């Protein structure tokens, strides 16, 4: 059964420890722009972590003209073959969550590959907003853009004027 990092959006505090630990493990330095998980902020005080849902029917894999995106045989995570990726960014456009990013230094894309099955973000999250779960169905339904999730949260909490601001 496929595994994926699932997010409890209501619980996220916006501390971004997940971003820090992700880039430390994967890049050996601390940088939100090199993190595979991203926390977006929306006024007033809404935080939305975005991470790959590891969709079963994955638009990124289907779109890639280089066949640079594949499944990891052990974890079933969608992984990038750095040799094949040419940085065309078609997968980024295709991703329904916005969970694929460009490494501009190397002109290739990168994404969450589940740290080989033991994601660091899940381990560090101090409020259990992130968890690693086995999913018996296509996780694609969880792949949403940060703006959409922020709007939903704003409605859920009945924020006055239903108003969130972002660029």
């Amino acid at each position, binding site marked *: 059964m496929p595994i994926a990092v699932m997010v409890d959006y*209501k*619980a996220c*505090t*916006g*501390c*971004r*420890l997940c971003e*820090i*630990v992700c*880039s*430390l*493990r994967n*890049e*050996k*330095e*601390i*940088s*939100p*722009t*090199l993190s595979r998980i991203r926390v*977006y*902020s*929306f*006024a*007033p*005080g809404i*935080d939305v972590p975005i991470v790959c849902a590891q969709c079963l029917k994955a638009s990124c894999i289907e779109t890639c003209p280089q066949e640079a995106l594949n499944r990891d045989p052990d974890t079933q995570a969608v992984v990038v073959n750095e040799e094949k990726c040419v940085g065309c960014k078609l997968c980024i456009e295709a991703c329904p969550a916005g969970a694929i990013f460009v490494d501009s230094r190397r002109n290739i894309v990168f994404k969450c590959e589940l740290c080989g099955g033991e994601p660091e973000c899940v381990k*560090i999250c*101090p*409020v259990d907003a992130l968890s690693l779960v086995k999913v018996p169905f296509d996780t694609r339904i969880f792949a949403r853009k940060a703006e959409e999730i922020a709007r939903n949260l704003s409605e859920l*909490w*009945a*924020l*006055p*004027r239903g108003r969130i*601001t*972002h*660029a």
Partner: protein
Amino acid sequence: MLKGGYAGEILQINLTDEKIRKVETEKYFNIDIFIGGKGLAAYILWKELKRNVEPFSEKNIIIFATGPLTGTLCPATRMCIATKSPLTGLFCDSYVGGHLGAELKFAGYDAVVIYGKSEKPVYVWICNEDVEICDAKHLWGLDTFKVEERIREERRDSLVRVACIGPAGEKLVRFAHINTERYRQAGRGGIGAVMGSKNLKALAVRGNGSISIYNVEEFTKVAKEANKAVLENETVKARKRWGTARTIIFTSDQDLLPTRNFREATFEGAELLSAETLEKKFWIKHKACHSCPVNCGKLGVIRIGKYAGTIVEGIEYETLALMGANCGISNYEAVAYANMLCDMLGLDTISTGNVIAFAMECFERGIITEKETGGLKLNFGNETAMIKLVEKIARREGIGSLLAEGVKRFSEKLNVKSRRFAMHVKALELPGYDARASPGMGLAYLTADRGGCHTRAWPISREISGKATNGTLIERYSIEKRALIVKMEQDMNTACDTLVACWFVKSAVGEERYVKMLNAATGMKLTPTEFLEIGERIWNLTRMFNIREGLKIEDETLPDRVFEDPISKGVAAGRKLNREEVKTMLKEYYELRGWNETGVPTARKLKKLKLDFAVS
């Protein structure tokens, strides 16, 4: 060569001639003896600020300083903002969480130093190598929430971190704050007014770079341990659920809660302002600053009634105490609204609550009347009047203009009798702990470098538990060992302020782990003892700064009320501080610090702390 932790450069921005310089962090100051954060700020203010500069003159400097652990996996790191305070005329460092400090590091800078004064409103834009002084005519006059929104819209990026001032900062209210991300403020000492005096509306930062770490494996290991230790700490567990609001029941029960301008020390309305009330009725989610596992922030919303539309992070304990109990107000909705108003308009809630409570007492005693207040009935408990006053202060309208000067200056303009209940130390309005029921807190207020402040030492927990240091015991209302406790806590807190680490996690993390993280991140080779000595060094440097700016031993005193009006009810009924005992504590404190009998660090002490340059 810097090996990690630091971003590597410091930005110097002169608003007068619009010159922008980038200097190497390592060449700018000696990182081994000052580290960063408060250490860097204290060093710059000592070195570069001329003696007796008027705080609102263009010669004053503002420093936004991070530390080598800001933005890393070290739990809860922040940013230090420092200047010469227009409220106290002394060294002033104020701290802000949120994400600004981390963002500045990702942009490639350890600190930003602002010099001079712009002729017209401007804001500073920092995006990696790109640094600009931009026109801010369209932002002038706007509240802090709008400023941030506008800058983010203009830059088409919701992750731009903005530090800005509201109308209060523009109007030079002496306790105006600097706001970031709506609900996080560098609150105390009027730093926002110094930005206003420079016509600097905002500092906006976006960074895409990275922080390198010298020994990734070791650093990650210790930092993970530190995060775990924080989450296992009992105080943190409570703070995670209830934030700082939980303190109000404790202080009310212990006769420590400022009530009606510090007349009483326990508040009958405390339950209505408690964390339990807020959790049940107000909060919707937890909020954390960058890299913080504690999430002491709570976002609250009011959907119906008179204050519908209020959304604010808090209400923090200090705001509940000073704008609630101290103004005799028990309606949390009114306090939440006033809190949001202060955030938007740019006012420090501690000082604001204080000056309003002081004005209320003056009104009830007939020292000021409706003629002066413009018709406002300033009785304790009048929430509508309190809220009106907040707006008047921020815009300096009517009596608001007098209150905007702070409680010390305001009381000096009134009947001389009012001075005995003007609750400040060295012009900084007192925070939410009544010193009559805590001699240690009295000493902490007296000796804090930025004036009456609760964040440099907080001996209250030791006094209540009776446990001093190394297993020794103390009696709650005695003065024994207070000098030692206050000195020890000041040194530790100051050392943490160089990193810049939040006070809420420091005991759970402990100096050993801080030093390990610092060494692993930067390649330094500090020991815990040396780390604490850095705290002591900087404490002595800020002391020398204050003495240079004219601090006298006579200023080192508490408001008369603390000595003259006993607490009327509760566990500490009948208590007040004794002038002789306070003098004794102060004398012991000076001795322990190696200062002479007038509180001046001796040349020997300064040399021992490698502060030879500060010997006069």
